[in-house]
């Protein structure tokens, strides 16, 4: 194995909370406090108002590899990048990077609003370490990539935020780095440009550029990186193939999970409350949380009424943590009792159970959560009671390996072109099975 491009060796980084000694008053006060015995803690320990942004983190990245750094906010991801970009120095341990480092850390950092696009390209590129000649040579490429040919003589203060980011990315992408650090940079800009950026980064990956990517966007990390590390509160929680690390992260984000949920807490202020949820095998009626794509599922919702209500609407939907991480609460399957004209009349103290039967889950491999609730009717916005992620399902699929969330039953077929007949050939036919109903 060749020598790693990046070595992160038992790195510790300490930060102080608040604005320690930003003014001279604090600076003079500190030694006096020390004299009075309320001194600072010994070096090497995180004392009052200090915390470890990174605590004993070690990893290596081989040439041409892409590492995804995953973790919740404040877990030390950006600190990791800043240490790699040598803006920060570790308090303990060491960081070693070999090669020209390019950083997609803040697009257009250093753009001056009063200068034109052209002037800013030269300014920003020289900040990123390009020489004058090199910039001149690449100028047209940069402008073409940003698709801003008509706006280069306009001060960038009149640019939209998308244009700003595009120009910033275009400049940063043409630095020809050997090591590329990518922070959450593509949250602005339209999808077309975003894809173009991801495409550009994949080109980097192919041309043996070593990358470290920090992103909350699972799809991007998955597309770009082979390996991943999971940080939490400055500690490295796991490392390995990026898919595994991502799964571990998203699983840990979800609640208690399992096939059963029950709550005995009385919620007297609610007209009706959900006391339990069970996921059962559709055949034998046993508790179950691991399903195959083709299997059916029975969901039981237990309720207790505290007031008199007539025909409340129960609902359940299945949420994919993978999708909801990037696009909000993505409902994979919704259902409600009202559509089935269930006649539920509740008197105070009534208890009961409603059952939803899913013929086939038709979900592809991964973790899913089921959220259940009850509301006045199908159209009301507020609900009486709702249990977020009441149960967790683990689906394994042998059917499709190509990714995606929903399985739609379909057939591929072929018809050979008949040269004798003057007919338009059907090259293939897409057939949707009648019993696959997808409600989104």
């Amino acid at each position, binding site marked *: 194995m060749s020598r790693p491009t990046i070595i992160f060796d038992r790195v510790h980084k300490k930060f102080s909370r608040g604005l320690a000694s930003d003014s001279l008053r604090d600076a003079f006060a500190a030694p006096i406090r020390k004299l009075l015995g309320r001194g600072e803690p010994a070096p090497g320990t995180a004392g009052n108002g200090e915390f470890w942004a990174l605590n004993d983190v070690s990893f290596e990245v081989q040439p041409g590899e892409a590492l995804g750094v995953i973790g919740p906010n404040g877990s030390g991801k950006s600190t990791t990048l800043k240490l790699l*970009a040598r803006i920060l120095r570790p308090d303990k341990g060491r960081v070693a990077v070999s090669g020209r480092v390019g950083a997609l850390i803040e697009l257009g950092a250093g753009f001056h609003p009063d200068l034109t696009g052209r002037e800013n390209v030269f300014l920003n590129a020289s900040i990123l370490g390009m020489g004058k000649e090199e910039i001149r040579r690449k100028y047209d490429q940069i402008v073409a990539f940003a698709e801003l040919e008509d706006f280069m003589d306009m001060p960038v203060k009149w640019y939209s935020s998308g244009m700003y980011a595009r120009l910033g990315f275009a400049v940063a992408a043409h630095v020809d780095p050997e090591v590329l650090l990518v922070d959450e940079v593509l949250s602005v800009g339209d999808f077309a440009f975003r894809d173009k950026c991801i495409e550009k980064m994949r080109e980097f990956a192919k041309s043996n550029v070593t990358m470290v990517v920090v992103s909350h966007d699972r799809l991007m990390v998955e597309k770009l990186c082979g390996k991943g590390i999971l940080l939490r509160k400055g500690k490295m929680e796991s490392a390995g193939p990026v898919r595994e690390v991502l799964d571990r992260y998203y699983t840990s984000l979800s609640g208690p999970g399992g096939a059963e949920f029950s709550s005995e807490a009385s919620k007297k202020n609610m007209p009706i409350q959900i006391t339990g949820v069970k996921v059962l095998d559709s055949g034998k009626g046993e508790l179950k949380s691991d399903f195959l794509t083709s299997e059916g599922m029975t969901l039981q919702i237990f309720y207790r009424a505290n007031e008199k209500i007539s025909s409340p609407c129960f609902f359940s939907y299945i949420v994919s943590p993978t999708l909801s991480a990037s696009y909000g609460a993505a409902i994979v399957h919704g259902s409600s009792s009202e559509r089935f004209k269930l006649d539920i009349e509740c008197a105070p103290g009534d208890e009961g159970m409603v059952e939803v039967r899913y013929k086939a889950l038709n979900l592809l491999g991964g973790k899913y959560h089921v959220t259940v609730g009850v509301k006045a009717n199908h159209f009301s916005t507020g609900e009486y009671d709702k249990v977020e992620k009441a149960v967790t399902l683990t689906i394994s699929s042998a059917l499709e390996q190509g990714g995606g969330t929903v399985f739609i039953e379909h057939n591929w077929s072929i018809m050979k072109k008949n040269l004798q007949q003057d007919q338009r050939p059907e090259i293939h036919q897409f057939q949707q099975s009648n019993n696959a109903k997808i409600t989104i």
Partner: protein
Amino acid sequence: MESGNVLNKTEDGRQAWREDVNGYVSTRPITAASRFSELLKFRALLWTLAWRDIRVRYKHSVLGVAWAMFIPVSMMLIFSFVFTKVVKVDTDVPYIIYAYSGLLPWQFFSSSTTAATNSLLANRSLVTKIYFPAEVFPFSSILAAFVDFLAGSIVLVALMAYFAMTGSSINISWTVSLIAVVLFVQVVFTAGVSLFLSMGNLFFRDVRYIYSVVISLWMFSSSVVYPMKVADPRIQWLLNLNPMTPILDAYRDVLLKGKVFDAASFGYSAIVAVVVFLCGWALFYRLQHRFAEKA
């Protein structure tokens, strides 16, 4: 500690770790040579930033670079009124050129250092995001102020030509070429002071406000608009410590009086300049990795 082994364990001689400016190990001590080569690599940036400052400064003003002449000229007129009509001050060259030849380099010094004080904070989006030798910011402030200085020099040359032709008591000779030495010492001193101020302001935001007062006091303690000999003899020893006075006097010696600057006092200034610069630079390097936390 055996943390050093990580780098060595994959060492196979042929693929030695790249020790050039690109390959970086965070805990490796910084040598003056490696930093200097790094700074050289970024010299294009120095020009670009200075040019940006100039461009932004004059982009929306009608007079443009003429402002660079307007400020010292108007100050010259004010002080000429004060020190020839209100209070009489004895100078061995006509007062108007005495004042201008002091105000122009002083303006260069004060505007460089004032701009440099805020330069790291003003560029915090860069300082906290991208690595490069951060002293390009204070240095580019000096470069930008130097352009103003050059523009203002046109007026000085015109004044010198006028007084030389009207046969006043100024004497222009070969010593004019020594201006390069004087200017060099001033730039070194300015750079040293700028490094300290820009760092200081990053760690203690008060520095900027304190310096705005200090710079006025400093001006009136230097031979900008009157010679130091008018001051109270009891504080002469204190005023002699000021390295700016010999520099300003040296400008007048070589430009207006046709003589070489006073070796002793100018030599003192030169030594102070070099010491301040080297200390400032060394400290700047030691602290640079903390800038991102402070900005």
